[in-house]
């Protein structure tokens, strides 16, 4: 633990080095800006800017990308609170109470509370990261192929089933992602798989093209000529943003509870940010003395979900960096960025790339302070940007997507890939499939296959290796638990629906009660 503090001190040296500090600043600024723009979230922000980091060294590149990530979360909250625009899904729940606050003229206070909660939660998450990472590393060295496969399976299952919507659809999308990861030449046999005779696909599908297609183009296809114009006449002044003592007191415990929810979910691989904020909100509503105030503009309904998303973000970095297992789609993208820089995430990362790891942790603090400082004067600018009409924003974004993908490998073929993934993504969104698990599956796919293969080569084809090794057995039982829980929910729901259907056919029984019992 003492060693951790010494390392952290060293990390601050790295994070405050002028060049690194500059890129960190650029990252949070751009992230904040893009987070504010309607329809653009952390995923699109990171994928557009990923190619720009190729020319940088590994440390500033990762600091900048991480800055974009938490910067865009700040930006997302602004759109949600001031204009009722969930610019990306995790903030949808913030709209519920944030926008009513704005309508009551309390928008500035809501933003102030959000900033306070975010900073508190991020700091807590960073502390957890500092003390938990070395612990996890000491365990991680015991991880063989069987353990790695089991934990990845857990991550994939959780990512598929715990996103919003139907769990079977989530798992189906995870499988689709795994298949997308297979495309290319098999490293073991040299067989070309799923290349459809195209030489350009013999390497692999391009991560940036996949991400921008699924989250950029697909989104435009879905929203073009349908996006609601943002109408708002909010004026936020600086002095409105400082919350009063009573307001801080009101938001304090919700903020702490939100932070803890986020920490817990961050440690669990595969649970997305959206589900985290929704659970934080639901928990707050349940423990609240006057739950009827939620939806009318309760500060607790803003503080808790925002805190949970920020602590989750920080804690998510632990499995990503130390095990090479990303918690969600954004982490998967950051993992891809690390690999492009030639850095192999894993237990050895903390020792081999100490400057990168501790520099990153220190930069989180530096970046979060920068964000607070930035947002105070820039809030007016963000409000103006929020009013940039969609009709001007999306053609410009189309160009940035095209050029961003091209610059990854100087390949026009990959721009074509974006188009294909965009169309596939739009169809899947229209059919109400969650697309985020695809990216998680794509990034983990090759690792899952490789470790599965290795584990079974070691055990000479004996599948029981996954349950006979203790650490692996724990993960497998968690997987089984997850599946069992989903199955029992599903059976309950189908039975309930069947009963409800019969009740309606007879049209005698009021089905309100049974519905309430099914979805509380």
């Amino acid at each position, binding site marked *: 633990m003492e060693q951790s503090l010494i390392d952290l001190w060293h990390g601050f040296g790295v994070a405050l080095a002028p060049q690194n500090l500059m890129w960190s600043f650029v990252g949070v600024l751009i992230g904040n800006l893009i987070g504010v723009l309607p329809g653009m979230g952390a995923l699109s922000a990171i994928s557009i800017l990923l190619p720009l980091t190729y020319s940088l060294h590994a440390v500033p590149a990762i600091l900048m990308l991480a800055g974009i990530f938490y910067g865009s979360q700040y930006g997302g909250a602004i759109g949600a609170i001031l204009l009722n625009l969930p610019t990306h899904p995790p903030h949808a729940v913030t709209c519920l109470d944030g926008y009513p606050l704005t309508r009551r003229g309390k928008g500035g206070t809501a933003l102030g509370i959000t900033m306070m909660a975010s900073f508190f939660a991020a700091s807590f998450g960073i502390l957890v990261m500092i003390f938990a990472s070395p612990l996890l590393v000491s365990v991680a060295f015991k991880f063989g192929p069987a353990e790695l496969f089991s934990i990845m399976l857990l991550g994939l299952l959780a990512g598929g089933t715990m996103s919003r919507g*139907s769990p079977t659809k989530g798992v189906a999308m995870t499988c689709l992602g795994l298949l997308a990861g297979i495309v290319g030449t098999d490293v073991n046999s040299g067989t070309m798989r799923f290349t459809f005779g195209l030489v350009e696909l013999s390497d692999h599908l391009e991560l940036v093209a996949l991400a921008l297609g699924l989250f950029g183009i697909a989104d*435009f296809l879905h929203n073009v000529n349908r996006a609601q114009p943002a109408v708002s006449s909010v004026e936020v002044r600086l002095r409105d943003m400082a919350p009063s003592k009573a307001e801080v007191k009101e938001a304090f415990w919700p903020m702490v509870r939100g932070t803890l929810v986020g920490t817990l979910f961050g440690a669990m691989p595969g649970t997305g940010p959206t589900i985290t904020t929704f659970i934080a909100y639901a928990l707050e509503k349940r423990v609240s003395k006057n739950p009827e105030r939620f939806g009318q503009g309760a500060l607790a309904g803003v503080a808790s979900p925002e805190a949970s998303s920020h602590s989750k973000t920080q804690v998510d970095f632990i499995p990503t960096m130390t095990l090479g297992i990303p918690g969600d789609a954004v982490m998967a993208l950051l993992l891809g960025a690390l690999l492009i820089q030639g850095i192999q995430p894993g237990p050895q990362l903390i020792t081999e790339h100490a400057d990168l790891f501790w520099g990153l942790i220190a930069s989180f603090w530096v970046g979060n302070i920068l964000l607070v400082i930035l947002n105070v004067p820039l809030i007016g600018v963000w409000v103006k940007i929020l009013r940039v009409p969609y009709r001007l924003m999306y*053609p410009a974004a189309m160009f940035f997507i095209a050029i961003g993908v091209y610059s990854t490998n100087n390949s*026009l073929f990959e721009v074509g890939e974006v188009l294909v993934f965009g169309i596939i993504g739009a169809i899947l969104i229209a059919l*109400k499939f969650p697309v985020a698990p695809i990216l998680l599956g794509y990034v983990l796919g090759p690792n899952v296959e490789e470790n599965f293969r290795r584990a*079974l080569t070691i055990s000479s084809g004996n599948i029981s290796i996954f349950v006979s090794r203790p650490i692996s057995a724990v993960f497998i039982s968690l997987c089984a638990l997850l599946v069992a829980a989903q199955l029992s929910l599903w059976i309950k729901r189908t039975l309930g629906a069947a009963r409800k259907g019969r009740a309606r056919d007879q049209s005698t029984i009021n089905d309100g009660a049974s519905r309430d019992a099914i979805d509380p």
Partner: protein
Amino acid sequence: MSAEADGEKGVSRSLDYYGGVLMVVTGLGSIWRGLEYHMGTLTQMGAGYFPVGVGSVLALMGVSTLIGAGRLPTSTGKKSTPEWRGWSCIVLALVAFVLVGRFGGLAPATFAVTFIAAIGDRKNSFRSSLLLSIVMVAVSVVVFWWALQMQFPLFRWG
């Protein structure tokens, strides 16, 4: 409220029908391709083992989505109107970027992608689309060609 919720459910169910079929077909396709590659055994896995496994799970998920979808509802409920103008412009814009970029260079490709995407939005006039595209060409030349020295000639012939 109840009628509205049921209507929504009806739409989502009929969508599940298409979604389930799509997943089953994709899963079966993956199994079929996987079987053509070498399968191998558990100890010595071939290239086909993993695709067949994942494909099976995918098909299974498709089937369970279909079961959840149940019988098709008689009315499909409210349907959003197709947005052909926007869709075709977005697709064309990217196709144009690839083709114009291949044969004409960065500057005309930038113009093409922005202009075609812009006229896809009903609220854009010819003039505002033109203006936006010219601004984006300027951004493209300054940021990507001049500042970032991207490997993409501004103009090229054929």
